[in-house]
């Protein structure tokens, strides 16, 4: 239970070339929450995500995953807890076949081959990719790659799912499929995205990053209702909250909290 909490305190990161990507970031994400981290290009979203499983070391501040501080010693445990889905699935799918890729994590965790087999089958079915099992990753479509990439992470049964731009480059159908899948998860979920409609549908809470700092943190509808804040952070309202330019109908606030396809609790 306590494993699912993410606590970031005064996180700072300065790259080797002197760029301060994160100046002061703090937030707490509790069990089962679905949080969208949004912000303009260069706001520090990806840098922040890379800290959450220790791919980058903080210059200052600290990160706790379920009350365990992130450090060299706790890294293996934390990497098991925090499942990270990369933006480009080609970076994540490096093994010869889908099966090998999904089995990579569990094998590294030291599971017995029979258990691995079972787990891989289960996870692939879950993401609707059972039929892709023996295919090499380069013969998959973009949507299939994304779902398999998620499976590779799920097979390690993480408590927290972190995803960088999950809907990036997907066609509308694949995007819809993926969103349905994500909304069924019971994990604590953290997304970064420029797809604000997706954020609105999947996330109850939104954190706005601007120039390496948390500019706003609150319920999605509240944040997306604040035009001034969005403009200052080089963002805009999700399309579903904007007036329809084609037919002129006013769709003010069509998305009431319970009409969303999915509401992060």
């Amino acid at each position, binding site marked *: 239970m306590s494993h699912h909490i993410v606590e970031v305190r005064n996180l700072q990161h300065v790259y080797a070339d002197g760029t301060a990507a994160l100046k002061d970031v703090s937030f707490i994400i509790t069990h089962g929450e679905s949080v969208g981290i949004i912000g303009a290009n260069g706001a520090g979203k990806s840098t922040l995500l*890379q800290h959450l*499983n220790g*791919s980058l070391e903080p210059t200052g501040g600290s990160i706790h995953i379920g009350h365990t501080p992130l450090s060299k010693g706790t890294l*293996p445990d934390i*990497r*098991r807890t925090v*499942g*990270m889905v*990369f933006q*480009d699935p*080609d*970076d*994540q799918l*490096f*093994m*010869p*076949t889908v099966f*090998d890729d999904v*089995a*990579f*994590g569990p*094998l*590294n*965790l030291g599971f017995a*081959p029979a258990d*691995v087999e079972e787990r891989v089958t289960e996870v692939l079915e879950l993401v609707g990719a059972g039929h892709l099992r*023996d*295919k*090499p*990753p*380069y*013969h998959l479509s973009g949507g299939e790659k994304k779902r398999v990439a998620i499976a*590779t*992470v799920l097979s*390690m049964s993480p408590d927290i799912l972190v995803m960088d731009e999950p809907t990036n480059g997907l066609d509308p159908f694949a995007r819809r499929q993926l969103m349905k899948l994500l909304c069924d998860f019971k994990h604590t979920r953290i997304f970064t995205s420029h797809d604000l409609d997706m954020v609105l549908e999947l996330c109850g809470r939104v954190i706005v990053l601007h120039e390496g700092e948390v500019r706003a943190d609150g319920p999605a509808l509240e944040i997306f209702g604040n035009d001034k804040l969005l403009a200052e952070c080089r963002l805009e309202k999700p399309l579903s909250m904007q007036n329809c330019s084609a037919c002129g109908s006013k769709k003010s606030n069509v998305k009431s909290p319970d009409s969303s396809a999915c509401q992060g609790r």
Partner: protein
Amino acid sequence: MASIHSAVLDLKRLDLLANGNSPIHRLDARAKVVVTLVFILCVVSYNRYELSALFPFFIFPAIMISQAGLPPLFILRKIALLCPFVLAVGIFNPVIDRGILLQLGPLGISGGWISFASILARSMLTVGAGFILVAVTGFTAVCQALERLGMPRVFAVQLLFLYRYIFVLTEESGRASRARELRSCGKKGQGIHSFGSLVGHLLLRTWQRAERIHMAMLARGFTGVFHASRPSRFGAPEIRFVLFWSTLFIVLRLQNVSQLLGSLITGLFP
């Protein structure tokens, strides 16, 4: 090279062929690797003027193609694109070696032409055997077979990485070079200067990708050890396959079947 682009398409096609489900596809890769090596060794062990004894060896590609359900024309087309170096070197044989070796009525055929034809036949057989091996086995399985036959693991693993990322990187560089082509007029802009920075950029992006991949590996608990998960079986079908073909190749190598058959025919019907 545009030809490399089409070669990559061919590579994808060959790779897809390996997904077939024929009895030959199902054999353990080691059996196929061993048989292919025996085949190649037998073919190249003939002396330079041997031609007729090479023909019976075509039975191997013919049977493999038909039994594995490979598209014969595709394989033939791939084989027909003979290595240019072979042609360039081989074509000197008829020029240099002019001694008449075979008299067909009024037509004298020099040793050079015969050895050139022999080189072509060897080339078709050896290259064809390689393609067929990949088409019925798949690159990954060939690598794993070689690893079980003693290839070092480090080498095998990075070979798999290489194969995986050929598909990603050739697309990337294809896009980059198309972009350059579209903005250059004729030969201008295609020179060595733009090449240097284009390839330099590609290299840096590749490097970053390698870093991300390593990150993705660490994120999934990689500790420097690759776990082999694939069960392998070298059972009766594999043993039969290896024994049958190896014996046939060795018999063909020791007995010139063409010669015997031809002698029977020309002997019977003079």
